[in-house]
């Protein structure tokens, strides 16, 4: 057993190793292991204590799903979750369309100040979220955005803020895919009699499909997760799940918060994994065309 462990860790080997064989060295494994611990230990603890039958997140008592039941019956938590989903879905539709159009515009046309426009598009990606949040709040106050609208129109300012920061991500993903597009496919469609519009629908959009789905999922997760910008734009009646969790934590970290957070983590992880897989699948399929 001990001998197997040492050989697994890479002790006692003197032969030279190839560049791709460093993964077999014990110190390399240690670094990778520690990185994962730092990254994921807090989340694992969060998820674990959401199943703990105790009000305090300190000692493990026994397994329970009570906190999930309690979270489901918490009306204010459900309203917040409903708001989050509504905002995320509307944001996904809008930012996917807007991001795709932006990417197509930058890819297809030459116009004055194009590099400036291109840089400006990337700004919401690099700008600190807190600045964006404050700016959004100031902007809506300045134009006098009404805050007594009926639901779901009352969510409109949050949706606008979310679209503003998530459509550039979609644009970046779509542009990356367009960079590998064979322009002769477009020429071929026109040569065969297709109009500009039909070429877009019949040739370019099917080619973009994996990137469209990936972009949509990314913007969905970005919107669902967002706290900072939403915090500055949400009113008392338009609380989203991350903002609600934050306000719950301000009083005390209860396992109910853990349960709500775990749900958020699961949704986020699943959509992100889907997005990445679709993007990879698209790259593989694109290389043969």
């Amino acid at each position, binding site marked *: 057993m001990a001998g197997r462990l040492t050989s697994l860790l890479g002790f006692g080997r003197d032969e030279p190793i190839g560049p791709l064989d460093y993964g077999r060295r014990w110190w390399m494994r240690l670094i990778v292991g520690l990185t994962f611990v730092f990254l994921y230990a807090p989340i694992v603890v969060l998820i674990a204590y959401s199943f703990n039958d105790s009000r305090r997140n300190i000692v493990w008592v026994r397994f329970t799903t009570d906190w999930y039941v309690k979270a489901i019956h918490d009306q204010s938590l459900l309203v917040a979750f409903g708001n989050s989903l509504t905002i995320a879905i509307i944001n996904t539709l809008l930012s996917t369309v807007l991001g795709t159009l932006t990417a197509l515009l930058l890819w297809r046309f030459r116009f004055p100040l194009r590099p400036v426009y291109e840089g400006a598009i990337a700004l919401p990606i690099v700008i600190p979220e807190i600045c964006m949040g404050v700016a959004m709040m100031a902007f809506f106050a300045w134009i006098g955005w009404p805050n007594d609208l009926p639901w779901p129109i009352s969510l409109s300012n949050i949706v606008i803020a979310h679209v503003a920061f998530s459509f550039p991500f979609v644009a970046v993903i779509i542009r990356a895919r367009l960079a590998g597009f064979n322009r*002769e*496919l477009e020429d071929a469609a026109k040569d065969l009699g297709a109009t500009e519009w039909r070429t877009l629908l019949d040739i370019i959009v099917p080619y973009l499909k994996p990137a469209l789905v990936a972009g949509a999922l990314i913007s969905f997760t970005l919107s669902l997760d967002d706290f900072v910008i939403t915090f500055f734009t949400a009113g008392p009646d338009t609380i989203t799940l991350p903002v609600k969790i934050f306000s719950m934590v301000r009083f005390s970290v209860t396992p109910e918060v853990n349960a709500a957070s775990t749900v958020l983590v699961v949704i986020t992880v699943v959509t992100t994994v889907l997005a990445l897989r679709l993007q990879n699948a698209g790259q593989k399929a694109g290389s043969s*065309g």
Partner: protein
Amino acid sequence: MSDAIISIQGVTKRFGEVTAVERVDLDIRAGEFFALLGPSGCGKTTLLRMLAGFEQPSEGRILIGGQDMTGVQPNHRPVNMVFQSYAVFPHMTVFDNVAYGLKVAHTPRGEIAPRVKEALAMVQLSGYEARKPDQLSGGQRQRVALARALVKRPKVLLLDEPLSALDAKLREAMQIELVRLQQTVGITFVIVTHDQDEALSMADRIAVMESGHVRQVASPQTLYEFPSGRFVADFIGKMNLFEGKVVAREAAGLSVEVEGLGRLELPADERAPAPGRAVGIAVRPEKVELTRSAPPEGSVARRGTVTQVAYYGDVSYVFLDLEDGPALNANVINDERAAEPHFVKGETLWAAWNPRDFLVLGE
């Protein structure tokens, strides 16, 4: 003139500062296999793209089937194109690829399937209807591209370097098949290529292009045997080129003083420059005869030493240094079965040629 399906009239194309095509006049006849041949960057592809409508001429105009194509978009032109990358739609089956042009033209549904079937049979792809492009070889994808263009029954089929992505064996087979296909369908083919063998073996007529200009338009044989100038002579096939000066130009003959070859008496040539002017004298390697014994009276002969022999199976290229300096390349046909080369390095030989085989090139 009236049988020209394509008439290119004074066409110039500029991209910013660069002139890709300059004042080209060209008529392409109905039903012919026409090649645009030239080195890369000579403007041949730009000219083809102007025929397809992807580029608009900066000056001049193009008529296709007698109609002015100025301002006519690619989707409204009676031509179809086979692209260099084939541009087969990756997300569509072979059937859908070929049917696409008919669908966008609102061809009646009942008519589409038989026409697709017919087009696929023409390129020998029957039975591949349900395949996706990534399940096809390069040669098969090219056949799809051909079928997709031909199914539209265009007046002219444009082919942009169609064989450049294929390996040598397949390329040769496709050359023969393209000619057969062209003769079957009777459509005018215009092919762009940088490969002179391709152009010579397939085309009825060839336009040789260089830096935006058409240098010569002629049949393959005329281009090879009677090139109009130095560029065409050098670009098509192999050539021994010598520099010289005209001594006398008379009805009886042309007398030229050539560096390293001395005085040559050639047949009369009214296109030759005036006496005293520089002239290029060229001769094809296969028109040089190599012998060990002195050649018969009347032929022009010089002695030279073999510096290298390159063996190609059917022919060998023999490189010689002539006694008075210039290098000479001669082709020897290996028409006898032998284990040893006919000529070897270091040997001294007679190189002889008929004065009629010399080309006189001006400029």
